[in-house]
């Protein structure tokens, strides 16, 4: 009997998801034993045309990471969707846009203009890359950028979501075990649309730092203090995103003295991450005087980035007006 087929692909991403999978170390041999790895650019040479030649649904499990930055990304997402039984939106970029999704705060023209006018750019003719360009020898082309970065599920139907930037390797290993067990009839897969490989509470619930009644008189900057290593960071005024962020990472950043920046996305049941975090931050502000509250809020120097750092593209807002206009 032939083995079930496995694929993994990156669209607009950084490659960290691939490294996270490689970091399951010896367990990668379990993947190799249980699956026929048919397409995984990072680890093996497989041909794109092989994927095209496959029957629809022939790939049992496809881990798809990366956002939809251009027409190329969308095309391959649609192709792999068609060829895959189980399509997992893998990692923050595919699930919610991640850091590259911050591009949705400005127009695509602004983004390209910025990149091609930096102080080291030698561009006297004010050139911008062209999707199609005629050279003396013939026409050459490059993909067209989308006006807005999209999440995977804004382009194709997705079966499961696996959050994290990148997903923690122990969570990947657990999901691998679950899928293998399910394929052998020894476990059941969760309902379609579920978030897998993560917890169902918040980072705060996993964080060992001591919490009291939270109340702050000022937001602070992590570099401008020696933070107490035992105490809740938010209580010390450091804007930590733990209260709105899904658990599953074992609170790695707060344990290492750094604030949670929200890479695991919205906690279970949270419709809009930013709205939840605004509510959480508001609840710790210790003042009922409007002027003082304004002053405290001024301590948050980048509210838009703070509340939508990883999930702008996947949020209710999705983008600024300038991005929508292109």
């Amino acid at each position: 009997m032939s083995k079930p087929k496995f694929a993994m692909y990156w669209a607009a991403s950084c490659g960290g998801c691939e490294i996270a999978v490689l970091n399951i170390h010896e367990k990668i041999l379990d993947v190799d034993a249980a699956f026929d790895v048919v397409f995984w650019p990072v680890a093996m040479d497989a041909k794109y045309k092989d994927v095209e030649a496959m029957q629809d649904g022939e790939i049992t499990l496809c881990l798809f990471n990366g956002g939809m930055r251009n027409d190329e990304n969308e095309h391959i997402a649609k192709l792999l969707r068609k060829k895959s039984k189980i399509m997992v939106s893998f990692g923050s970029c595919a699930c919610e846009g991640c850091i590259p999704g911050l591009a949705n705060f400005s127009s695509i023209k602004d983004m390209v203009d910025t990149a091609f006018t930096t102080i080291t750019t030698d561009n006297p003719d004010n050139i911008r890359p062209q999707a199609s360009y005629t050279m003396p020898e013939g026409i050459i082309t490059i993909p067209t950028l989308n006006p807005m970065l999209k999440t995977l599920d804004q382009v194709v139907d997705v079966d499961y979501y696996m959050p994290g930037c990148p997903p923690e390797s122990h969570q990947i290993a657990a999901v691998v075990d679950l899928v293998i067990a399910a394929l052998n009839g020894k476990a059941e897969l969760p309902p379609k649309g579920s978030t897998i490989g993560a917890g169902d509470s918040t980072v705060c619930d996993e964080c060992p730092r001591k919490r009291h009644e939270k109340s702050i008189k000022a937001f602070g900057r992590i570099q401008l203090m020696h933070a107490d290593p035992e105490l809740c960071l938010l209580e010390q005024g450091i804007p930590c995103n733990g209260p709105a962020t899904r658990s599953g990472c074992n609170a790695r950043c707060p344990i290492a003295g750094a604030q949670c920046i929200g890479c695991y996305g919205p906690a279970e049941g949270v419709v809009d991450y930013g709205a939840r975090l605004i509510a959480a931050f508001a609840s710790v502000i210790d003042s009922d005087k409007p002027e003082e509250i304004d002053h405290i809020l001024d301590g948050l120097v980048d509210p838009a980035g703070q509340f939508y750092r990883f999930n702008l593209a996947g949020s209710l807002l999705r983008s600024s007006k300038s991005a929508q206009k292109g």
Partner: protein
Amino acid sequence: MQRITIDPITRLEGHGKIEIFLNEEGNVANTYFQIPELRGFERFCVGRPVEEMPLLTNRICGVCPEAHHMAAAKAVDAVYHVEVPPTGKKLRELLYSAFYCTDHTTHFYALGGPDFIMGPDAPVAERNILGVIHKVGLEVGGKVIQMRKFGHTVVEIIGGRKIHPCTSIPGGLTKGITEEQRKEIETMGRWAIEFAQFSLKAFNDIVLSNKAYLDLIVGDIYTHKTYYMGMVDENNKVNFYDGKVRVVGPDGKEYVKYEPKDYAEHIAEHVEPWTYLKFPYLKNVGWKGFVDGPDSGVYMATPLSRLNAADGMATPLAQAEYEKFFSALGGKPVHQRLAIHWARLIELLYAAERWVELATDPEITSPDFHAIPTATPTEGVGIVEAPRGTLTHHYWTDERGVVTKVNLVVGTTNNYAPITMSIKKAADSLIKKGNVNEGLLNMVEMAFRAYDPCFGCATHSLPGQMPLEVTILDPDGNPINVLKQYCE
């Protein structure tokens, strides 16, 4: 003009694209190496608190987030005009040394090495890490996995996470290490030195002892006489984390040595309309197109460049290997691109030695790992050597430390022009009168693989690593062969 196209007809898979045009005689008229995407970090980092830059720019590349984390950390130190305490600097460099061991190991065993270990003409299906393990044995495979694991373990202990570390902030780090952690790091480092020595011996036995491979390395097809860039310490020895950037000419003599803050006086980036990536060059030499020689500002930034640009290695075992390297290849500078693989292993040994040096430094467990900045933030440049080339981050902020402008000149970007030239030279040398020789195809592939190109990183613009697929078409549009390249 007759047109033979080297084109990724599988356009939608490729994140890099090569076009080769032939003239009437069927010889190469021109080649274009295109990079198809832009993510726009320079734009969307504007407005963010500058202390987030080491976290945001990590996401440029998940293969070498440590490099971006460190360049960003040094840039935010500079923005705040703060001097990091010695323990802070040493912890960062310790993390970085362990990362280098992991990264160089991955390239040698999973990417570049298979060409030699399996042979340049081995079937594609075997030319990968699994093929290598089958050939050299499971025990070696286990060592490779162990090396990657140890490196990531150190990154996690100091950086808080295995991928996308989170602990560097303006003025130092958010945490230090305990004596118990120090011991663990030291033990792993000692093992890493042995592993690096083992890897150099394997390279010697498998590659250098094989005349055919050696001929390939020293042959003309992979040779370009360009400038070379690399960071050096105060004794002009290779350093990955700190120092000045030194550039030597095609003759091997020092052309310039600059402070990170002065990079824009020396580096400019040429623009072409047919690609999203820019072509850096030495500003004061000038852009003369895709040509080498002393009058062309094209330079290379790779492990080989670093060895060429420095006067030696700062650790004893690596220094011995450095001397052996240049004596075997006929002195400095070495222009043969395939020697990058060998240079990479010498750097692996240096990184492992430096790892142990730092892990046994009496200051490394000190709680003095962060200095609170007191000056008003303004502007700052941070440079480190990423495995794939000199990495420059430059930020401007308002008085609150909110980013107002960003410039990035990133690892592989430095090598965009030389890689383009290497591809053209391989095509020029091997495609004659319209005949596409099968044997040349893997050799073209090897030409760019030697650079370990990572165009995600390079352009902070594309999918992290570039799975490049090139389909060669005959004049009738029939596919002849497919080339592939992966960053990791």
